[in-house]
């Protein structure tokens, strides 16, 4: 079956009223999550993981996809109206978007962000539809050795590229890998890192605790420590109807940045450690360089909103590419999604598209539909979003903590889980305070057991010969790339010192 036929089949399932309802709920929740600073889509999806025991996989993944996409749309609204990015990938939008809003051009900024997100999201999805089967075809040739090398590359890239220090990235990653190994080893049945076989640790650490602790508790504790919780001044929303916010000249100035942003977003998002932050920055600086209105940059240039917003939405489709085709997460949200696949007993990887084709194509189809839902949700409902932004911040964060603890407690009603949550919260606080990125920890936590399994399989196949990783060309190339990525920052620093 061709990818187009599979996609059409996916649309028939995704347009089922119940599935559509889940998609709508996801988009709505995602927009809310994106709006509110301090709640990441990874956290929201992690909070919903307990429902994987009761809700069918297709409905749940459509919900998750809506949350992931919606967060990108919602993040731009808070960036533009209160200069507080709800998402790290919308930080760049705040640079020009908030300046535009201060000049009374909030409507134009919101409209170019929403339309740009829609067009770029669709372009990204078309690319995902076209390229995913090709990558799967190539990846089917991979053996455990290639998989292990790919996981090493993913881990190293996330740790060395994200954040401001390779050392901090590697500490975060190795801590995550160790935490991922807690529990009973599936192959040998030995208990590892369980402090003498403590029963609560034998099943390992739940992903939800790590994500909620690091992102929700850690960030909230940091905000409390900074003592700067205050209600933001929200700029007024435009009074004219939403369809009149952009005029002909705005469309003319926006379409090229949208297109360029899409082309930055998808390929970079698909790379390990690409994420959505790098393409938005690249798009912003490209637009600044190419714009005919360079003097407007820094004072509210529409191109500075259009390009980065397109880039971040296109990157979402890019991030899904390695997850759906190789089973390798390249962002915290993708890692949580991978964990959701595991809770359904689904093994992500090249076989996902062949064995669970229905689920994957429904997920992709629901993203196309979600794009349209989000366009409808974002512009006409802007007044409702503004009302939400006016909630008192202190009560908002208190509510978030209560929801997070309730979600963790509901898993097994154990105070030990709450203790683990608090430990992760403390680590999250220290990470935030000292500029460590929590993403490598989350990725290490999920990749650790998978990498160990691939390593063992590769060693069994090669009869214990370690050279299998460097004698197989694909594996050797990937390991070489990882090696360069890991040591390049140190060599660069050393060279700079000498010069």
């Amino acid at each position, binding site marked *: 079956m061709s990818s187009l036929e599979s996609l059409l089949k996916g649309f028939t399932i995704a347009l089922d009223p119940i599935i559509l309802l889940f998609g709508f709920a996801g988009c709505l929740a995602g927009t809310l999550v994106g709006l509110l600073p301090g709640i990441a889509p990874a956290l929201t999806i992690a909070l919903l993981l*307990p*429902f994987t025991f*009761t809700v069918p996989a297709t409905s749940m993944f459509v919900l998750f996809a809506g949350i992931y996409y919606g967060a990108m749309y919602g993040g731009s609204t808070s960036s533009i109206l209160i200069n507080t990015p709800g998402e790290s990938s919308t930080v760049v939008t705040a640079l020009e978007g908030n300046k535009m809003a201060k000049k009374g051009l909030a409507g134009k900024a919101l409209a170019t962000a929403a339309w740009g997100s829609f067009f770029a999201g669709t372009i990204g999805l078309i690319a995902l539809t076209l390229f995913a089967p090709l990558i799967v075809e190539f990846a089917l040739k991979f053996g455990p050795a290639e998989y292990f090398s790919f996981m090493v590359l993913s881990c190293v890239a996330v740790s060395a590229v994200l954040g401001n220090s390779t*050392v*901090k990235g*590697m*500490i975060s990653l*190795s*801590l995550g*890998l*160790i935490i991922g*190994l807690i529990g009973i*080893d599936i*192959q*040998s049945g*030995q208990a*590892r*890192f*369980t*402090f*003498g076989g403590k029963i609560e640790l034998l099943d390992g650490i739940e992903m939800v605790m790590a994500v909620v602790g690091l992102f929700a*508790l850690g960030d*909230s*504790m940091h*905000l*409390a*420590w*900074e*003592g700067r*919780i205050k209600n933001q001044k929200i700029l007024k929303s435009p009074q004219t109807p939403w369809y009149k916010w952009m005029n002909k000249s705005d469309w003319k100035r926006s379409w090229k940045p949208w297109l360029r942003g899409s082309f930055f977003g998808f390929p970079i998002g698909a790379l390990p450690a690409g994420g959505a932050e790098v393409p938005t920055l690249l798009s912003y600086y490209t637009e600044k360089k190419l714009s005919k209105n360079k003097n407007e940059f820094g004072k509210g240039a529409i191109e500075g909103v259009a390009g980065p917003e397109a880039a971040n939405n296109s990157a979402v489709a890019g991030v899904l590419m390695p997850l759906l085709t190789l089973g390798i997460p390249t962002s915290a949200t993708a890692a949580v999604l991978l964990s959701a696949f595991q809770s359904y007993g689904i093994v992500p990887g090249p076989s996902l598209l062949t064995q669970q084709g229905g689920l994957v194509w429904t997920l992709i189809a629901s993203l196309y539909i979600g794009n349209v839902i989000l366009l409808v949700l974002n512009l006409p409902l802007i007044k409702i979003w503004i009302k939400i932004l006016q909630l008192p*911040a*202190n*009560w908002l*964060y*208190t*509510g978030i*903590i*209560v*929801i997070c*603890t*309730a*979600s963790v*407690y*509901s898993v097994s*009603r154990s*105070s030990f889980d*709450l*203790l683990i949550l*608090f430990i992760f*919260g403390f680590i999250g*606080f*220290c990470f935030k*305070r*000292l500029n460590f990125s929590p993403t490598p920890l989350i990725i290490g936590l999920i990749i650790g057991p998978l990498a*160990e399994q691939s*390593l*063992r399989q590769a*060693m*069994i196949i090669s009869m*214990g010969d370690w050279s299998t990783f460097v004698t197989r060309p694909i594996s050797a190339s990937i390991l070489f790339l990882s090696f360069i990525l890991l040591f390049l920052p140190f060599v660069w620093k050393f060279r700079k010192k000498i010069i």
Partner: protein
Amino acid sequence: MKSTHFSIFLIFLCGLAIWQATQIPTSGLRDSIGAKNFPFFIVSLFVIFSFIYFFQQLSFYKKKEILKNQSTNNVIFFCLGCLILILVSNFVGFFIASVLSSIFIARSFGTVINLSSLKNCFLITLTVWLLFSVVLKLQLGPLVKFLS
């Protein structure tokens, strides 16, 4: 929390990780990697980078870290809130523990504790409890544990 304190905390974690890694029994299976080797490799990685960070911070320590006007009191209130939840939830149930905890959490965000804020804490927790237990059918236990 200064970076030097955190680097010492990391060294402490290294100690724990090494101790736990040495406790893993050797597998009886004919497996060239075994249950021990991969954890040993990861722990070594953690130890190496933690020590690099520790020495980096030691050299940085002389330059003196400048902290802005952060509030340690707020963090103490936050931690107290979490601690109450951990210690009390098993005895009185999640609802009461969470109401008590949310008072301290709200205080850590600068809320003045008075009758109105106590009411807010109660309402927030009640809403969450109803949402989880009644609407979403997730198990948070009885509303008041010692009465059930």
